[in-house]
């Protein structure tokens, strides 16, 4: 077995429970992400999705286990891992453009001012923002526009791994749809590796190459890795007509509704790797076949 681009190995997170003991959020979680892959993680609140994301970003430290990216262990935050937070995390005293230029200047310190400016503007235009909003402060932008700026900032520094922490969670459904399309468009041109958290099953199917399903916490696990066997480019209207769409969707709903609870609790396994689930109704043998990696 070759080592994937990003390899998470036996990651555990425990917190003191306030009574002298410990609460284990998740234990011995192991999974990998290939270069250029778009991976979405789905699970109920409290299963530690955000904790995993913060560990990947280098903003938090795991109790046990390591994350290896591109042959190097992840320790501390880095420009190699860009993050888009749910609450946008734009600096409110800077204009939309400056929120991007400061990141570009940090990433490419050797660039001239003009280069930084041109690169930043290009990325803001890529997410569908027009020049007249470049000089507005985040407070003068709608939620959708703010998240576009945030996405532009993340793509502008071309990180090796892009982490999206429920990026559309605070947006209304219509805005969410358009920005998902923008994200797909921008992503398609870059071969960017993405790891994303979401609560939205349809969003996950639309965007992902692979969905990691987490069981409920405490002692949560990354239980399954569901391959999205729907060809790209995808489109929110046509995707629902694909024969695999509802098969995959039903599987995800079943898991989140039922199996995630059944699977909850500690296991004896020293390492919990997700089961790979491949659902493909277009092939003759259409039974879901589960394979351990």
């Amino acid at each position, binding site marked *: 077995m070759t080592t994937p681009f990003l390899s998470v190995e036996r990651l555990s997170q425990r917190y003191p429970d306030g009574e002298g003991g410990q609460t284990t959020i998740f234990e011995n979680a192991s999974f990998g992400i290939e270069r250029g892959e778009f991976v979405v993680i789905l699970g109920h609140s409290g299963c530690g999705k955000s904790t995993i994301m913060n560990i990947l970003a280098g903003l938090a430290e795991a109790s046990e286990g390591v994350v290896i990216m591109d042959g190097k262990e992840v320790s501390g935050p880095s420009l190699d*891992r860009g993050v888009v937070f749910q609450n946008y*995390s734009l*600096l409110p*005293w800077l204009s939309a453009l400056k929120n991007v230029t400061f990141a570009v200047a*940090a*990433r490419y310190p050797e660039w001239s001012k003009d280069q930084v400016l041109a690169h930043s503007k290009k990325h803001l235009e890529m997410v569908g923002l027009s020049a007249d909003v470049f000089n507005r402060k*985040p407070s003068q932008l709608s939620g959708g526009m703010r998240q576009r700026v945030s996405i532009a900032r993340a793509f502008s520094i071309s990180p090796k791994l892009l982490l999206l922490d429920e990026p559309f969670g605070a947006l209304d459904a219509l805005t969410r749809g358009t920005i998902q399309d923008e994200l797909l468009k921008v992503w398609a041109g870059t071969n960017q590796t993405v790891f994303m958290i979401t609560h939205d099953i349809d969003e996950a199917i639309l965007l992902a190459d692979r969905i990691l399903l987490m069981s409920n916490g405490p002692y949560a696990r990354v239980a399954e890795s569901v391959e999205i066997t729907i060809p790209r480019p995808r489109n929110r209207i046509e995707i629902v007509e694909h024969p695999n769409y509802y098969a995959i969707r039903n599987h995800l709903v079943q898991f989140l509704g039922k199996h995630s609870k059944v699977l909850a609790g500690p296991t004896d396994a020293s390492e919990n790797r997700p089961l790979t689930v491949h659902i493909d109704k277009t092939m003759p043998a259409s039974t879901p076949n589960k394979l351990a990696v």
Partner: protein
Amino acid sequence: MTEMSVNKRAAILSFILLFAGLLLWEAVIPGQKAVGELTEYERLTGGGAQKAGVPPPSQVLQKAWEQLSNPFYDAGPNDKGIGIQIGYSIYRVLAGYFLAAVIAIPLGFLIGMSPVAYKALNPFIQVLRPISPLAWMPLALFIIQDSEASAIFVIFICSIWPMLINTAFGVAGVRKDWVNVARTHELGALRTAFMVILPAAAPTIVTGMRISIGIAWLVIVAAEMLVGGTGIGYYVWNEWNNLDLTSVIFSILMIGVVGMALDAMFGVLQRFVVYSE
């Protein structure tokens, strides 16, 4: 009738209040009778002597015109123009204030960044802060042995606390998300401080600076009454000793005007650093 803007209506009301107030003041102060109009009895009982009454506003205005038309004359130690006196006071306030800012803002930054420093220094700050700045005066005079420097020290000690506390509070309260933005973009400690923490805490810091300058201006008047020699505080006290109430009232108004101008300067600075989330 067309609707007037709120600002216009407020300005008109302000003028009416000012005019009515001045008129009332003028009306309640009895005029001094000329000697020729006095009866013999009044002259015998000393009715012709100048009564040290509160002067009417017309006299104060006349005084103001006189003083403001030549604010910088210098006719000896006890007779200097209002401009010179205010100049001395502003110099002392700014000197003490900037010394305080130079220490309070960096120190507040460190305290705000480090929970340990915050907890360790908090008891000292809490004890030192409520001390009336004038209570330091005897100690300052004894140690520094110079009245001028002592006045500046008193300004220093009274303006340091609001700046220190607000800076620490502002820095400690910077949203963790913004610090995370700095961390994920690999900004160094210095760049994080100047690009993220300082602008994020700036509104709170400037509020502290604004409170400080207000307190400093309050305290300088009292300090100069004690220290003497020059300054608007000394001027007020000197004119009181001269029983020149007109000058006293005029200088009280000037203290108010200068204090307002100092505050307005920081108001402008505050508008410059404020941001909305």
